[in-house]
């Protein structure tokens, strides 16, 4: 059950597209999530995968994840260690892919402006709060369907549970 996360922030800019998050040349190579993780943000910050730690938080500007529908762009980021992404806005398919991978994607332009690279930030999913060194920012809680998917660690486990429970 997802409740509260605290992590160190990696902050990037606007319009980060799926080709720099997970290059197209890898999309049709069959990879396990751990292998995908080695290429996370490869064409944006090649050193990212060496710097990131488990439980860290990715912060970005507007339109994060624009472009392709490739789900690996969400899965790679998650398995690289990122627990949650905060952005000024998300592309719609990336948003869905993140949720479906069990990784919360939170839209808060105010929080993004307040957060600096390397900050320690806490996110309270239940109360809908982002706690930063420069203040606390609310965000609207997810609809129940979305919370159920996150609480099952992604769409596939959610569907599995639904089928098992009849």
């Amino acid at each position, binding site marked *: 059950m997802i409740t509260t996360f605290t992590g160190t922030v990696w902050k990037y800019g606007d*319009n980060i*597209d*799926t*080709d*720099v998050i997970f*290059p*197209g*040349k890898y*999309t*049709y*190579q*069959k990879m396990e999530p751990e292998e995908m993780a080695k290429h996370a943000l490869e*064409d944006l910050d090649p050193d990212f995968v060496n710097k990131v730690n488990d439980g860290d938080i990715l912060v970005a500007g*507007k*339109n994060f994840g*624009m*472009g*392709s*529908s*490739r*789900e690996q762009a*969400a899965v790679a980021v998650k398995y690289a260690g990122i627990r949650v992404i905060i952005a000024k*806005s*998300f*592309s*719609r*398919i990336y948003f*869905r*892919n993140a949720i*479906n*991978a069990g990784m919360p994607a939170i839209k808060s332009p105010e929080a993004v402006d307040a957060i600096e690279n390397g900050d320690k930030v806490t996110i309270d999913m239940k109360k809908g709060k982002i706690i930063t060194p420069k203040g606390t920012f609310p965000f609207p809680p997810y*609809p129940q*369907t979305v919370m159920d998917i996150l609480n099952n660690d*992604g*769409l*596939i486990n959610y*569907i*599995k549970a*639904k*089928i*098992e429970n009849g």
Partner: protein
Amino acid sequence: MPKTFVEKLMSRKANRNVSAGTIVSIEPDYVMSHDNAAAISNTFKKIGVNKVKYPGRIVIILDHEVPAPKESSAINHKEIRKFVEEQGIDNFYDINQGICHQVFIEEGFAMPGKVIVGSDSHTTTYGALGAFSAGIGRSEVAAIWATGELWFQVPETMKIIINGTIPKHITPKDIILYIIGQIRSDGADYKAVEFTGETIGYMDIGERMVLTNMAAEMGAKNGYIPPDHITFDFIRGRAKDEFEPLYSDEGANFYRVLEFNISGISPSVAKPHTVDNYAPIEDVAGTKIDQALIGTCTNGRLADLEAAAKILKGRKVKARTIIIPASLTIYKQALQKGWVETFIDAGAMVLNPGCGPCLGAHQGVMAPGEVTFSTANRNFKGRMGCREAEIYLGSPLSVAASAVTGEITHPGRFL
């Protein structure tokens, strides 16, 4: 209360009265996937059901890495063929048929008033036929294979009205790059887009597909063009199923209404590394190019090849030129019209129908420092396999003209 097209369609599918903002669980009429069906079938198996729920609603078209450039792609294809066989999926198109979006439409799966989803962001294309069509993720396709349904938030609609007569040397690609330059790449995030206006009435289905294909590049969930006699003529004898068109009501609530007059625009170019980095071609004319690409799900249709042939006829290319018909049908038509010979005589390479180098997997990957001028829909850094390369986007006329001179050139020079 008056409703938009998408509100009416979602209401019909959900069997209740819904409007923008509501979350609905509905059963799509068709779910499309391509080479990523291999990964999807693995995810599907993890769900723990043995059989797909509605085999007749599944369409799989191999196009991204065709023919297989390496062993791993060949294994992908092999797994898909096995899965298709086991599951009794009849709507399977192997590696020789063409680009998924083109084949899907040629085969008559895209119909007015249908809900179609696909594990490809340019699934938006089918809205050219009056369908609601949206790109989704791989897990979501696996979920639909298993359960037949998926959750959606009913989107608000942005209406884009395009007026004006289409100037000489201007194609739908120029129009949509110009519009994306104004709206920006996130201008329609999460929104449904409805294209209307007198200019649409001058466009055939292939030309309309350029608009709905590129709707993805403004962030849209779907792009819809209200069906008219051109639509009905196109799908007559082709439609896979009965269909019932839907239209936005008079007085429906639109999130934004934007109007563009395209009578005076120049050929458009998207500069590296975003699709909304618009410039009229005059501003970038003279930029040296190493490679020209004419094809892809945006501009690999007959009219696009005709445009290229018009310019390349009797001339020689200076840039490496790759031409890829979007489907086998188009390839054959181009061959019969003599255009393939025109391309070969000009020194261009004509490749088999498929996505080609657009996503950087094969068939024209770039080297550091190189520049490609392409008719594709994306120019992101690394898109064509190299993060130190640059991609400009433009119309088939502009790219063909530039292939001849080896630098970005206004097509008017040769017409």
